[in-house]
């Protein structure tokens, strides 16, 4: 049985860690579950902070030193209120937008109905590899795989066949969410899950247990390929 200390050491190093022990402890301890959610939210900010844009040498002028001091002093004030406050900024505004964008994309993607024959592993890999990902066998057969333009970025778009029906999977490396965002729009039910890099949207129509399927898909994705 995982103790609170073990759980926190584990998720402190790997906020997106899963596994039976972690999941069981999350269910038993709301404080630890919240702590992991906070760490995941913080990782979303870390990910964006690390993604610096490096202009060629000599292009940019340094900021005044005073601005630097002021900015750093604002750290505590800005984040001491907790990552929950940050989540409002991070998640609340884009929440509705991301659902609408995902549904609009699914509606307008020709050929992505999931009715085709299963694709080869190589075909799926070719779509995921540029995003640095791989799909394991646990997700189910993939009947559609393409690199699509979403929100101005090229993202992998898959249709995975499940016993409950086909689900669409969009890998949104550039869009972060701090916790699962569920939506139900225009006949589509979906969930956007936080991922080590960005997020993953799983969308279906009339799929009874979308959360379980989304988790299954999520766990089949290797983000370190």
């Amino acid at each position: 049985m995982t103790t609170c200390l073990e759980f926190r050491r584990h998720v402190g190093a790997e906020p997106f860690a899963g596994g039976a022990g972690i999941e069981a402890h999350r269910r038993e301890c709301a404080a630890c579950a919240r702590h992991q959610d906070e760490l995941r939210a913080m990782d979303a900010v870390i990910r964006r902070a690390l993604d610096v844009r490096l202009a060629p040498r000599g292009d940019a002028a340094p900021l005044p030193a005073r601005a630097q001091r002021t900015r750093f002093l604002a750290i505590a004030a800005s984040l001491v209120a907790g990552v929950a406050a940050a989540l409002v900024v991070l998640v609340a505004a884009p929440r509705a937008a991301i659902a609408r964008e995902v549904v609009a994309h699914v509606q307008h993607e020709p050929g992505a109905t999931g009715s085709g024959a299963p694709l080869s592993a190589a075909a799926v890999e070719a779509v995921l590899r540029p995003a640095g990902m791989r799909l394991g066998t646990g997700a189910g057969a993939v009947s559609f795989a393409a690199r699509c333009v979403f929100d101005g970025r090229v993202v992998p778009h898959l249709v995975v066949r499940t016993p409950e029906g086909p689900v669409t999977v969009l890998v949104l490396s550039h869009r972060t969410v701090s916790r699962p965002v569920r939506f139900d729009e225009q006949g589509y039910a979906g969930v956007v899950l936080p991922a080590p890099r960005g997020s993953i949207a799983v969308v279906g129509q009339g799929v009874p247990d979308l959360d379980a399927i989304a988790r299954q898909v999520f766990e089949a994705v290797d983000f370190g390929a």
Partner: protein
Amino acid sequence: MNRADGETDRRRRFGSLCESLRPDLLRFAWWLGRDRGLAEDVVQEALLRAWKSFDSLADEGKAKAWLLTIVRREFARSFEKKRLELSDVDALVAAESAVLAAPEDERLAQMREAIFRLDEEYREPLVLQVLMGYSTQEIADMMGMQQGAVLTRLFRARARLRQQLGLAAEPES
């Protein structure tokens, strides 16, 4: 394929890898050295070394990890030469303020600076994990460490960030 065609193909493949991976290599080198000029020099030198040993790369799918490892080694060489110049973190913050700035998001700039101020032993695995997407085992392999040591560093990296940002620190034991 004759010899000339083979060389052309080799150059094309290497050029393609450089084009797609250079931004990540540069970002990684910058987070290691916290100096844009140093990062550019390190990446340039690393790519030259990579070109010379390109034939040793058996699987081009693993090119990114291979190049990052070369950048690490090159950085270690270059850093020895510049260690004294890079000892003042406040001066580094001022010098790299343009890269650290995020005018559209103050909170992002704060986090960026907090990461910038982390010790290298914590900053590097954090960059490899969060930005580059490597597993802790892969990071351990790249850094020549045990996985447990990487986990400890990652835990401490986040704990220090929380501390720097005024959030409650986590007990380590």
